[in-house]
């Protein structure tokens, strides 16, 4: 369960600034090991440049997962994204090629989420040299696991979403809950591209997605949240804060793939 999980204990951070700081620290550590003279200037990537690069590769990751045969379930995609984000939090893009890490993340996610794919089936989805890809994946697997500190269980927001839909249907039947589904899916896809999973709990992300979908359907769920779902005042305040921030982060994020 999330409350007792390693995800909550090790991979949830306070806010975006913390994440930025961590990434800068990683970048600096990498550059420092070469002890470069001051006038190197543009040779190394800065933290922001790394971020842009990673954004591009996250987009590639998304495409890879969507086009994967046989069709992947969403939990696998969510887990793969989490691994990817966690890996490049503490490792530099300059050190490990994101493309290699990308496929390794997906492969490991398939294993963990019990989505059975043999390595042969897997590399069939990879374009280019299959043998080499297989080698790369298998060699990087252990590296990835250790970079994630072997915290392999990832709690994704998909089950909480189902929980909310059940609850809505039971306690707030005014709303046609099933209509919300496509919008929820859209929102969660966007969430994957942001840093939200590193900051908020999956239940909060799920609730945010439900509320956002309701807004798109021009429904009002405030009644549900305030009166039916949560009855405690303080709790309500923190929930509302969280939801608001999540929705903001998702809205603000630029989703066009950056041009190479």
């Amino acid at each position, binding site marked *: 369960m999330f409350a007792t999980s390693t995800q909550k204990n090790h991979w949830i951070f306070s806010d975006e600034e913390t994440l930025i700081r961590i990434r800068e620290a990683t970048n600096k550590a990498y550059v420092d090991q070469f002890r470069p003279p001051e006038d190197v200037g543009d040779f190394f990537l800065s933290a922001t440049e790394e971020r842009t690069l990673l954004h591009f590769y996250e987009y590639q990751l998304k495409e890879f997962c969507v086009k994967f045969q046989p069709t992947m379930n969403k939990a696998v995609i969510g887990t793969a994204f989490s691994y990817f984000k966690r890996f490049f939090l503490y490792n530099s893009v300059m050190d490990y090629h994101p493309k290699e890490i990308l496929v390794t993340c997906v492969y490991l996610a398939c294993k963990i989420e019990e989505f059975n794919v043999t390595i042969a089936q897997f590399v069939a989805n990879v374009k280019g040299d299959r043998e080499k890809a297989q080698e790369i994946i298998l060699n990087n697997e252990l590296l990835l696991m250790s970079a994630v500190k072997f915290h392999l269980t990832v709690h994704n927001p998909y089950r909480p979403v189902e929980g909310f839909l*059940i609850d809505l249907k039971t306690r707030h039947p005014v709303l046609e809950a099933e209509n919300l589904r496509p919008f929820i899916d859209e929102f969660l896809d966007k969430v994957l591209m942001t840093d939200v999973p590193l900051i908020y709990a999956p239940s909060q992300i799920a609730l945010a997605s439900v509320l956002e979908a309701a807004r798109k359907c021009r429904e009002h769920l405030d009644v549900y949240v305030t009166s039916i779902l949560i009855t405690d005042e303080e709790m309500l305040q923190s929930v509302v804060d969280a939801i608001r921030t999540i929705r903001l982060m998702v809205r603000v994020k630029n989703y066009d793939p950056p041009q190479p």
Partner: protein
Amino acid sequence: MGFIQLRLDSVTMDDNLACPRCKTTKYRNPSLKLLVNTCGHALCDNCYLFWRVSGLWDPTPSLRLPSPTLEDPAVEKEVDIRRRVLRDYSKQEADFPSLREYNDYLEQVETIIFNLANNIDIIETNKLIEQYKKENKEQITKSRTRKPTQILLLEAIIEEENRRSELRHMESLHSAKEEKIRKQKNHEALIDDLMFLESDAKAIVESHKATQAHQQVEASEIKPLPSQLGISSLSSSAPQPAYQQATTFTSGIGFGGSASFLPLPKGLGEVPLFVYKAFLLEIGGPPPPSLEQLKYPSSGKEGHLQHIRPATEAEIAGGYHHAIACRRALQDAFMDIAMQPKLLKSRSIQNESESESTTKEEVEMDTS
């Protein structure tokens, strides 16, 4: 019916050889046996069967097809002929008054065989054979029953060997039995002595050991068997250890008083007893309904279960109920919904510094 002439490509039983009838099968089965007919032609097993069944050729009544052990069918043929002829022409040396006549007889036999094997004057040779048979009819019948001397010799040798091995066996059994009895006696003697004699127990044991060893040496000297076949190895079993009186338990503790045990150390200190503390889960959100509430809803919370896929009979038999899945979904939805990431701040900085050092380690490992 006439013979069907068959061609043989070559005569040796290697890969070139083909059964003349079904030419192809030799490729498939290099170990295919070719059976040789009396006419000197070879047939593979299947073709022989066909031949028998179809009856196309003149089936020679005396056709025997022993497994051909010789590669050359010509030789095979000759051997067959020889055997047949010699069954009839079976006079021994003793039957002739002189050596010369015996040799003449043998020459006669060889000529006949040669002629038959090479298809020379077959008709006349056969006539000769018939004539000879008629003349020596009684002799032939007598000798047919009598086994030829060579076979007799062999049989005698085999019998001799069997007898010897059986004798050996009996002797070994006998000696083993004796050994057993002897040991038993010694054992009993030792016990008797220990009980009744007044001298030191150790000395008795020693003396018994000595006598035992002596006896064993004697026994092995007697061992060379009457059959003189060097079977002395039978007696070379390892000398059994003499009977030893037990003085300790197998764990090493001696018989005798319990004074050797240490007393339990007192005053180790009172260790606090284990107290059970129930596991407390902090939900961090509104409480999700429990299993009972889901299964048996009060009026307010009716029917969470109706929105989840019901469990099939097989699943219920296996212990699953859809209330479990429902509760799980709701639990995950409500848990930590009121979590405030900022409150975790202190921990995340700690993580940060920890992970920085690990990153450095990782990086160093890679570059080293």
